[in-house]
């Protein structure tokens, strides 16, 4: 099957917006409530390898974008399945039933972006320790300000009374 055939088959999915980015890479946007269904559809098409779940903060649109990076070993094609969710109270459903390893990726997205995944039992702290600020990968998290406040406030030893 050629790339064009894949694009046509993906475009048949209701509500999808498909674009051939370059050789071997396709982007497929679907509405958030169709995400899981679309993932199942793609998995049946041969996209069995979940490479990663990428998360992007589009702060201007007040939206988070979740990108399910899927690869097909049979046709050597890659598809970015994209869904957008609101930045206010971000919540999505888990894909653990399709790919067990999604648990770790969702755990990371939960910690770094603050997205809750319904159905994932393991949204515990992953990489960060004692984190009390807003999730650090959000665009409105100012890391320079954070470093200044957190570390500049520690006085030098000789300054202490």
């Amino acid at each position, binding site marked *: 099957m050629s790339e064009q055939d894949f694009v046509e088959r993906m475009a048949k999915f209701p509500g999808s917006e498909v674009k051939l980015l*370059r050789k071997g890479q396709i982007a497929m946007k679907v509405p958030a409530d169709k995400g899981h269904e679309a993932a199942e559809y793609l998995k049946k098409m041969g996209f*069995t390898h979940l490479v990663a779940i*990428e998360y*992007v*903060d589009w702060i201007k649109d007040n939206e988070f974008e979740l*990108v399910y*990076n899927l690869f097909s070993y049979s046709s*050597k094609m890659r598809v970015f399945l994209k869904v957008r969710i609101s930045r206010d109270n971000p919540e999505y459903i888990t894909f653990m039933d399709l790919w*067990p390893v999604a648990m770790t990726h969702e755990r990371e997205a939960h910690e770094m972006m603050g997205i809750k995944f319904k159905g994932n039992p393991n949204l515990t702290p992953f*990489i960060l320790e004692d984190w009390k600020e807003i999730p650090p990968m959000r665009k409105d998290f100012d890391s320079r300000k954070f470093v200044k406040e957190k570390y500049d406030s520690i006085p030098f030893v000789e300054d202490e009374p």
Partner: protein
Amino acid sequence: MSQTKTIDLFFGPQHPGITGNFSVRVTVDGDTVVKAQVIPGFLHRGFEKLMEMRHWIQGPALICRICVPDPDHSETGYATAVERLAGIEVPERGRYIRSLMLEMSRLSAYLFYFGGYAGSIGLYTVGQWGVGDRDYILDLFEELTGARVYHIFNFPGGPRWDTPPGFEDKVDKLMDFLEKRLKEFDKLYFNNRVFIKRARGTAPMTKAYAQKMEVTGPNARATGWAIDVRKDDPYAAYPDLDFDIITQKEGDNYARVIQRRMEFEQSIDLIRQITRKLRKMPRGNVRVTPNPLHWKIPPGEAYGAVESSKGELGYYVVSDGGIGPYRMQARGPSISHGVQVYEEMVVGQRVADVAALMFSLDVCPPDIDR
């Protein structure tokens, strides 16, 4: 046993049997592991966030640090992603130099790997030999790039400069030496009865399990699953090189180590193919890079993956048309085999194999933490 008492043990972050700054909390019942929980995060340096504040061209200086023993694959993964996004074609000689560096990097990572696993079962000499031989590779890296460990050499658009005169001959000479050394490694290590007894049948992974848990790289190939990013999603000069995907069957610790040993030989062969080709090629034209200070990449997204010594290492980059990445996310190979897969596979193993399994899977904590 009518009543069992379990104890929690902490493996790492300060432990000789751990692959870097990493920790595992294992619950043991006697000598058997009943539960494990990995604790990553000791090497979290926030590269993905830092990248958002930098120019496109400043990327390689940061991201080569994502995998410490195998930095060139990180650089090339990022460079491949940016090139795909910007539509840049690297000149042929540049692609070959890139592949040469990647294979040399793979050799040096595998030498570390041999020593790591051997150390976990008490064969310390292998580690000393491995680190010693790796130094010859680092010498060549120093001659080519000016740096030993982090080379910051594979920029988007191609490698920074051409090989110095006579470099190919030195590489070939080193390959002859390493081939000879591999026979000595066979005697010391791969045919060693201690290694065979300890590794054979320990922690086997089936092909179905590898497919279910998205395991990639040599760990997947050791189960008999013939996948390789160099073949599946070609980059650098790999489409032009002649090689087959090596696989094992059993998927146990033994197969995983032997898989790397066979790939070590394959890398030597690939490097010879590359140097033969490099000698025939006209020198000079190795990269295309626009003005680095005002380099804008068209908006969009791209993914570039490489077959690192640990598995699929990929970079997802998003551009909003600015001078730096809007978002850059790394997909480290250890995110699958270092977290969930390890936690599940270590259950039922003896305490002595906790470290051995971690080394045989080649868990690289910095690519989980980033």
